């Protein structure tokens, strides 16, 4: 078996496009989700430009509807949901459990092609007029009245869902069946627990949105009347089915991020995680509870008051495992030897921003308060704190942390810290004013607003431009580092975890001999910590 790095051999475009190596597939995904991230960002730029002034001048209402819809569709389905599992998860799940690959390598490659196919169909829809329903595709607007390319976009998202299902299936089987000898469940890194929980949600939630979109597409294309109130159908039923997946989808986006943070916090505090089993089971608890809170999206949609109360109480309940994680990360820091390297800056960013996002989520699960802020910028700010402040922060933190392993090179620390700071400042300037805007009553999805709200909107747009710069800097230096960055040793951070026992970058087979695991996952407290400068 060759010890050559997975990046070096075999060579050629064909060897990349037909690879079944989980590490190369992770790179394929990294390229594609990054493209979609910048496409989604371009729509955000247009949105923030329009909202600089109170009047609806830069674009008209119809165009604006398409802009925020495509921003949401692209970011959620083609970036946030796949980003961490398919890039970091694909790369690390086999390496962390001492396996040579995922259980089904060809299925893994297939899932990337399915993603590309679904994404291309949706791109085609975007080019041909776009879609204006919001990413939620609410009926009967989407099935009867919308002028957008609902059918094409729906088919694109439907297909992409199968990529998600295949990835989740692959992870579940891999984690069950491919662990190295001695690697019991409580010896798994928390990253693995988080991905296991995420995979459960992908496998059980995604088929429901697939069926729902299929019914919407059938209704629009074939003239069926399943959700059409004019023909006896029930549009609220669509909302139930949609949110049965789409609320768990929020946890599909944030659970892998939490897994990343558990690795970063331990590695850079040089301490074992506080309360390992609580953090591990909190992931499972979030996955289970996450399936029973969808109704909190429908407090003002006409579901019964009793349903509202039950969904409200259950939504409060999800805060418990989430809070356990935040408390345990914080407790891990206590008396640790904390180093403020770039990945840790992102982890700190995550903990702070996720806490704000989570607490404002409690505002929204309260029935009375939700009636006031429903469909306002308060909601927009809340979920951006989770998705951007949480998921993207963790994605970037994880990308920096494992970049030496993935690329074999170190990134420029100064630039990296600088951009982490720019992103943090830009993010808060963009989204904190939106909490205030929402509380003051500015509804989401409108392209014009009263003049007295302009100051906060200008702040938000200014923040977005800072945030955009912050995202561009890592793009540049990560590319740069692949060629010019210093080569790194197997374990530049002095971190624990099987992935760090392999060379950087690892050989195609990952491990020359299957490792035998004899200890718990985090070994920082038992040995002398070596802080590498």
């Amino acid at each position, binding site marked *: 078996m060759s010890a050559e790095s997975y990046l070096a051999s075999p060579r050629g475009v064909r060897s990349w496009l037909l690879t079944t190596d989980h590490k190369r597939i992770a790179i394929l995904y990294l390229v594609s989700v990054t493209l979609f991230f910048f496409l989604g960002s371009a729509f955000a730029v247009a949105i923030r430009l329009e909202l600089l002034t109170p009047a609806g001048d830069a674009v008209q209402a119809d165009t604006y509807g398409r802009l925020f819809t495509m921003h949401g569709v692209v970011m959620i389905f083609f970036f946030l949901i796949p980003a961490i599992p398919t890039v970091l998860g694909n790369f690390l799940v086999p390496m962390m459990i001492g*396996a*040579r*690959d*995922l*259980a*089904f*390598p060809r*299925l893994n490659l297939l899932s990337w092609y399915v993603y590309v196919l679904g994404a291309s169909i949706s791109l085609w829809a975007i080019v041909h007029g776009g879609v204006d329903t919001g990413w939620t595709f609410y009926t009967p607007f989407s099935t009867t009245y919308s002028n957008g390319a609902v059918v094409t976009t729906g088919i694109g998202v439907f297909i992409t869902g199968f990529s998600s*299902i295949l990835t989740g*299936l*692959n992870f*579940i*089987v*891999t984690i*069950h*069946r*491919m662990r190295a000898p001695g690697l019991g469940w409580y010896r798994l890194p928390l990253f693995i627990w988080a991905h296991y929980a995420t995979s459960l949600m992908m*496998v*059980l*939630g*995604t*088929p*429901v949105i*697939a*069926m*729902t979109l*299929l*019914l919407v597409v*059938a*209704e629009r294309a*074939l*003239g*069926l*009347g*399943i959700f059409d109130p004019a*023909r*006896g*159908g*029930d549009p609220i*039923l669509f909302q139930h*089915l949609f949110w*049965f997946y789409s609320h768990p989808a929020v946890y599909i986006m944030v659970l892998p991020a939490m897994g990343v943070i558990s690795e970063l916090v331990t590695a850079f505090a040089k301490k074992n995680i506080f309360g390992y089993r609580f953090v591990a089971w909190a992931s499972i608890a979030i996955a289970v509870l996450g399936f029973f809170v969808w109704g909190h999206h429908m407090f003002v949609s006409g579901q019964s008051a009793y349903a509202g109360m039950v969904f409200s109480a259950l939504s409060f309940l999800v805060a418990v495992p989430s809070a356990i994680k935040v408390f345990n990360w914080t407790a891990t820091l206590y008396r640790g030897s904390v180093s403020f390297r770039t990945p840790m800056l992102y982890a700190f960013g995550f903990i702070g921003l996720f806490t704000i996002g989570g607490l404002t989520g409690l505002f929204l699960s309260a029935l009375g308060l939700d009636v006031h802020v429903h469909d306002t910028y308060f909601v927009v700010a809340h979920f951006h704190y989770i998705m951007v402040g949480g998921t993207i922060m963790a994605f970037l933190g994880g990308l920096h942390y494992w970049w030496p392993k993935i690329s074999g090179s170190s990134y420029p620390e100064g630039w990296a810290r600088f951009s982490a700071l720019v992103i943090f400042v830009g993010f808060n300037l963009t989204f904190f004013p939106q909490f205030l805007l929402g509380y003051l009553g500015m509804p989401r999805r409108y392209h014009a607003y009263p003049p007295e709200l302009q100051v906060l909107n200008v702040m938000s747009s200014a923040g977005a431009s800072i945030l955009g710069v912050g995202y561009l800097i890592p793009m540049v230096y990560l590319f740069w580092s692949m060629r010019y960055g210093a080569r790194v040793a197997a374990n530049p951070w002095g971190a624990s975890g099987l992935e760090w026992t392999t060379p950087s970058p690892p050989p195609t*087979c990952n491990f020359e001999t*299957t490792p035998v695991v004899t200890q718990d996952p985090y070994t920082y407290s038992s040995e002398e910590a070596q802080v590498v400068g």
Partner: protein
Amino acid sequence: MAEAGHSQAPVSSLKHHFDDMEQQQAASTLGMWVFLATEVLFFGGALTVYAVYRLVYPAAFSAASNHLDVRIGAVNTVVLIGSSLTMAIAVWSARRNGPRSTRMLVGSLAMTALLGSVFLAIKATEYSAKLAAGLFPGPAFRFPGAHARPAELFYSLYFVLTGLHALHLAIGIGVVAVVAARAARGRYDLEYHGPVEITGLYWHFVDVVWIFLFPLLYLVGRGG
């Protein structure tokens, strides 16, 4: 990886990233079960819609159900249960060595695919009769009596559910045909027959879906 040599199966049957045949077999079986869990939720979405509308429009759904031909449905149920029997025989013979069990494997797989095709053929005639009777939802939908609109919902769900079931069955027939062709070339034996096992799981699942659809669509509330 070194253990591959211990197994009697051809080395090519063991993928490089598994340690032994047992691990490979356990992985593919678990993979199929997880996939079937996905499928349950997939059909579950549409069955939820069915359950809600059945509760809202019980009389209309009974009236609409009366327009389905219960004899055709019953015959198809028997055909499909027969195919599950032949599939079970296939899995049984795959677990045995020797030319006789290989012949039995190939024969029962071919029979399974044939019965699946018979089901689809009967379903096709049933569909064309419904189309001719104006029961396909949409602008051309015609339904006598007071329940036209909810009946259209019933037929929307009828075509979605049975259509997706037929699609699953068609995929199953294709997979069974491929497995049968490989079996004929002596690809499977006592050591390596995972593809037969997981194809069997899939086939029985598709069968079970029909076991739910038949009473829900043809029988419940009939004559009411």
